[in-house]
């Protein structure tokens, strides 16, 4: 199966999942109130995130066919996403400023004057197009890594907290070991060993970032295990699996959500460092910044490339961090106790 088919399938899955979550939230009073509170406090940030997610999804829906772009014969044989199809104009030959009608150097007329809202880069590619494509990469880094880290963390965290004994000792030892290795170094070592590529990098990021969630969920499970109703359920002969699924897991979800949101910005920031070291994900904002960093020394200065990537990354992270902050306030029971 070709990658673009998988990508389309994933989009469908994500949309279905989102609908499912919406349905669940509408039924569950606690979550409904919490998210209502979030919406009241951080409406702007939530909208910004929604916009980014929309762009990311649009950039994941692809199909083949259509006119070829300029004299690029190959483009008609390749799958292109919705976002790609919005930028059908042929590339320029090199730099042009935002909305310019002539090339930055030499002043030749552009192929499509005035249509590059954020200008073009060294190779004449539309900067807005590249920036928007970076959204999907950032979301992919966050999403894929979470998809690896969260199940791992929950499995070991709940297992250790619930079962205790030798398994708990083992998990605790693994956690102390991994958290003793500075995460960036472990990350680099993992990537050097696993090889380069989006999947490998996300796997490495996942392996380095599951520990914190694991520690939190272990602690929380330890507490939950001792609660009366869990003890009562056990006494009534409910199986371990059922206790975990019915009573433990739902009570950990708020921690998962908070960790996920806070983890996201860290992942994207880590990726920029990896991009500088030449082991980043291709097409990311980190790569754009790394490629553009020398352009600041050009005279006259080329600012739009680095600015576009930096502003895009910054606004996403700012929104995510802001939402994460609010979520923590709303969902974390300890602070909830103090505010009420």
């Amino acid at each position, binding site marked *: 199966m070709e990658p673009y088919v998988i990508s389309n399938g994933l989009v469908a899955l994500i949309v279905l999942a989102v609908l499912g979550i919406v349905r669940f939230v509408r039924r569950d009073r606690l979550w409904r109130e919490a998210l209502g509170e979030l919406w009241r406090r951080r409406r702007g940030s939530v909208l910004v995130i929604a916009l980014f997610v929309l762009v990311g999804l649009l950039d994941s829906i692809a199909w083949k066919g259509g006119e070829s772009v300029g004299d*690029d014969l*190959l483009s008609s044989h390749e799958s292109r996403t919705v976002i790609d199809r919005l930028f059908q104009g042929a590339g320029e*030959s090199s730099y042009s400023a935002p909305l310019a009608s002539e090339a930055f*150097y030499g002043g030749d007329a552009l192929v499509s004057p005035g249509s590059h809202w954020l200008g073009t880069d060294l*190779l004449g590619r539309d900067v807005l197009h590249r920036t928007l494509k970076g959204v999907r990469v950032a979301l992919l880094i966050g999403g894929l890594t979470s998809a690896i880290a969260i199940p791992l963390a929950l499995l070991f965290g709940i297992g250790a907290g619930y079962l205790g004994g030798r398994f708990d000792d083992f998990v605790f030892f693994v956690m102390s070991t991994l958290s003793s290795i500075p995460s960036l170094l472990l990350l680099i070592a993992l990537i050097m060993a696993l090889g380069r590529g989006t999947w490998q990098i996300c796997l490495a990021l996942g392996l380095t970032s599951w520990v914190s969630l694991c520690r939190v969920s272990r602690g929380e499970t330890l507490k939950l295990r001792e609660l009366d109703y869990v003890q009562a359920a056990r006494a009534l002969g409910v199986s371990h699996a059922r206790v975990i699924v019915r009573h433990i897991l739902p009570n950990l979800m708020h921690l998962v959500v908070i960790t996920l949101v806070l983890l996201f910005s860290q992942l994207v920031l880590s990726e920029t460092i990896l991009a500088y070291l030449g082991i980043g994900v291709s097409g990311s904002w980190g790569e754009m910044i790394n490629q553009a960093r*020398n352009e600041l020394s050009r005279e006259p200065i080329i600012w739009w490339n680095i600015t576009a990537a930096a502003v895009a990354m910054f606004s996403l992270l700012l929104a995510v961090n802001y939402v994460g902050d609010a979520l923590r306030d709303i969902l974390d029971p300890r602070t909830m106790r103090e505010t009420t």
Partner: protein
Amino acid sequence: MRRAIAARCAGFWLTGLLALATGCGNNPYAEADPAVKIRFSPFATPHRTLDPAEAYNVTAHEVTGLVYDTLLEYHYLKRPYTLIPGLAKAVPEAEALGDGRVRYRFEIREGIGFGPDPCFGDDWAGASPRIAVASDFAFQLMRLADPALKVQVRDPFSRIEGFEAFHDALVAARAADPAFADQPPLAQYQAAGGIRGVRVDGDHALEVTLSEPYPQILYWFAMEFTTPVAHEAVAYYDGEGQRERYADHLVGTGPYQVIEYDKRSRIVLERNPNWYGIEQPDAPGAHYPTEGAPGDAEAGLLDAAYVGRPLPFIDRIEMRLDKESIPVFNKFLQGYYDAAGIIKESFDQVVQNDTLSPEMAARGITLRKALSPGLFYLAFNMEDSVVGAKGGERARKLRQAMSLAVDAERWIQIFLNGRGIPAQSPIPPVISGSPEGYENPYRRVDLARARLLLAEAGYADGIDPATGKPLRLTFDTYEVGSGGALDREYFIDEWRKLGVDVDLQVTTYNEFQAKVERLAYQVYLWGWSADYPDPENFLFLLTCDMRRSTNGGPNSSNFCDPEYDRLFDKMEILAAGEERDAVIRKMVAIVENERPWIELYNGVGYSLAHDWLRNVKPFGMSYPMSKYMDVDARVRAERRAEWNKPVVWPAWVLAGVFVVAVVPGIRTFFRERQ
């Protein structure tokens, strides 16, 4: 040890704070005595090795070239490049021995002193220096054959009679007796019998016999590979205990000696008090040349203040590790480096209409241009079944089509700001003997013809009939510094116009080399810079003997053509002239049709220097010519002070904004509290 570090740290900060209190500024050096002439320059990466037998790249030669001098040298000013005697008394003539063998006899100067070094015994700093004699030259030639050293240029020297036999004898002796390798190198070499074709005749004559004519050998005697090496130094610096490795500790007979070597931070060189030129200023390599190329006098390169004066002029050379190109260039503009290349980011600031911008000229900066004897090319792996020789006529047409799609002119404009000329043949035009006026019919852009050729090859519109999808090739490359691989993505876009889907695979340099070794590559970008100014140094890159796949040579395109090889053998021993030129044209024609390479560009070096650096002439090949240059430290100090006044007002503005933002809040806060 920890306490020592803590104490040093504290000491650092105390002295440092005092220094900062007395004067802030961006000067990256400590205050220096203005009477000492210092040259400041950057180096980009820590050197892996500075052993003259192993070091083989431009940045290493910038250090080794100053410390290790050679029997022959290049004339600083004359073009085309001309050899002059260095440590030898004269440039030797080839003497035919009748049976195809040739002999060169070098008469060696007297009083060639090694720089003072503890390896020369207790009296090393005393009045009588260690003098280099013929056996020290022979010792280094034997080192070149030593399998324990990573020598990359063994091939040209293997034409010396008995060179390979000596190599094999060393291998055998070490294999037979493990204790053999524990002896000092000189003892090992003597036990292995030495090289038959290298004869030491007293202290001041060296005879080198070649098993076949090879006129280019003289150029190799102008490279640091053939410098005299003291066997005591190699034996002493073995990397054991506190002693460094010889590759990190330079002991040579050149005009300078290394007095500080911290490969991850700085290298400092000072005059070698034992240099032969001090006693023999009349030697051609020991004084500033009295004549030059046309135009040199107008360019101020034959200033009466320098002509005929003893070298070197500069007392001290300070090199700093500076990995990123932008800081290097900015420090040059601030006056902290004396010379610099132009980085593409600043090109438009520096050069306008192909001359120096008025702003730069007003600062006293000068621009020099020189065609460099180097070539960059896209190469196909001829061992590959799709693009290579195994693909037959089809693959040839594919290569021809791909060659016709690559616009080198625009590439040079975008990535080099026009600092290059589109290459036509394997030989850069600056090398005498390159085919003059030659235009390669496959090196112009002709998409229509390219698509036609592609269709003839069976890939109409780039579709591979075997899969029904666009033909997929891989372009292997490695990360070169920062900024990613945009310059190589360019070619991908060019080939997309043919409908060919080339996948760019960026790996590390080492992974790339591993791929080359496994023959798992199809297209790559490569470059070659001349070792010496002769067409042979480029044409040999395509001979069967040099194939990477079978012989581990530098022909990593693995091109092999019997006719080409026959012509090469003929060309190699011909003297420069019409007959040789004709042979070269035939070879170029074969390359033109076969297209193992897509010739991309020959660089034009633009170099900048401040006017306080005197006698600068771009040399093109990798030989540091610092001994001919001079600096005016007084002018430099004045300019630095003038250019680097800090701009302080933003600090006050920032502080002001903070106060204005915070004070009202504090006031309301307290008012409410009350």
